[in-house]
């Protein structure tokens, strides 16, 4: 995220404060201590991660930039694409639209937490089997969303799967194969229980 995304009026007001006319990246990780820094612990994939963050750090940025779990992807960063989908207490959410410190005490599951050792989660196996991705950028979000979808039971038809997966966009257009993969897992396929 650079200052190029700010409008002119904001840039001018920032320039007045910082006496800086050259746009430079806004750091995600604060470069200097902030009075509002808070010590929190996030529980991700069964493991506790203590962090010191500003309140404005989203769960997505905490996972990627503070904890180093980069499997969760930053797409639109505004809740429109679903690439950042993770499970919080078993429910799928967009991690870009919640603050890290609003998720203290909750069980957070990311794409890194689905496999058991070297054994992939059945949804991961099904995505590979059905070639349910091309570039792969949306895939961690698709898979987390799909795991929740099967648990929710909204898989009675292709149309229902499509409707309930509409929060996960795929610009490569792998949708037909994504539906096939989910359908197989919902019907007990890809050789494992969820």
């Amino acid at each position: 995220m650079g200052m190029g995304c700010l409008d002119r009026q904001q840039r001018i007001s920032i320039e007045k404060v910082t006496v800086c006319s050259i746009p430079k990246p806004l750091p995600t990780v604060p470069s200097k201590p902030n009075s509002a820094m808070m010590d929190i612990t996030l529980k991700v994939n069964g493991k506790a991660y203590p962090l010191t963050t500003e309140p404005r750090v989203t769960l997505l940025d905490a996972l990627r930039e503070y904890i180093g779990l980069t499997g969760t992807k930053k797409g639109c960063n505004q809740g429109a694409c679903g690439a950042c989908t993770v499970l919080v207490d078993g429910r799928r959410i967009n991690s870009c639209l919640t603050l890290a410190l609003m998720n203290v005490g909750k069980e957070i599951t990311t794409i890194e937490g689905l496999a058991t050792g070297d054994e992939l989660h059945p949804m991961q196996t099904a995505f590979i089997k059905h070639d349910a991705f091309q570039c792969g950028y949306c895939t961690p979000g698709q898979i987390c969303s799909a795991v929740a979808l099967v648990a929710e039971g909204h898989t009675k038809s292709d149309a229902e799967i499509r409707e309930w997966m509409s929060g996960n966009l795929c610009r490569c257009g792998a949708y037909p194969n994504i539906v096939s993969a989910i359908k197989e897992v919902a019907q007990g396929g890809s050789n494992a229980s969820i």
Partner: protein
Amino acid sequence: MRPFNFAAATEPTEAIATVNDTPEAKFIAGGTTILDLMKQYVETPTQLIDINGLPFSQIEATPSGVRIGALARMSDVAEAAIIRENFPVISEALLLSASAQLRNMASIGGNLMQRTRCGYFRDPAFPCNKRVHGSGCPAINGEHQRHAILGTSDKCLATHPSDLAVALVALDAIVQVRGPQGERRIPITEFHLLPGNTPHIETALQPGELIVAVDVPKALFSKSSHYLKVRDRASYEFALVSAAVAMEVQNGTITSARVGLGGVGTKPWRSGEAEAALQGQPPTLESFREAAEAALTPAKPMQQNAFKVELAKRTLVRALETVGEML
């Protein structure tokens, strides 16, 4: 996002007092609207009070209907048996909103407080009377294809984006709020304000007031209700137009009808004109068409959104037909 202070509330009085006493303080529940707007510097609170720990997430039967806690999530309300069985229009409106992920996050109170999706409002590079009072409205001479045709003023054409609120105006819901002076009840039709000359004032909430619940009375027409949403793509999109309708028919005559319209109003739109046109008529296509004409008579379309007039009429007729077939 600008830096801000954060505190999690453990009881309502303290949370309300903090927001009332702190300039630029805001409540945060699901966060799906406010964090999005904070990233775009449209919202710049200095203090956020997290209200998720407050006891306002129950969905419970009351003697007169149902009370939906302000912190209940859209997904939980949509799936609740008491809502599905007694108020299908609410469940349908919720399930046609946003995505599964967002519905798991977004609260009912936050849904009513969500801001318009007008592109000029969401981009601080442009003037906007809603964002900066008196700065101007670029939509009037610019992009207004998705803007309102009902309740507009020469200061603002922005559409209210909520589907849920359209269902609630059709069902005479009451918003229960708590503030520094205690609790009060605001009819949902009076909760959102017309833009007039003050589009920056969007709701009847006073400083520090917090939505704690939405009460929906049960009526004979509640069960025979329906939400129809028309949009540019099949899912995960805001309404071009939508209709929330509820109807009661006795001996071949409409004895009571409720009509809400979405995607066309600067606030969730209740059409008294359509309801009056339906009252006492037989539930026929002809009656429905007359009601649709009446509903859109006050419309003031602009060049790019004129299509919404006919689309809204057809959407309302279709929704009424669907309810007519239930009876």
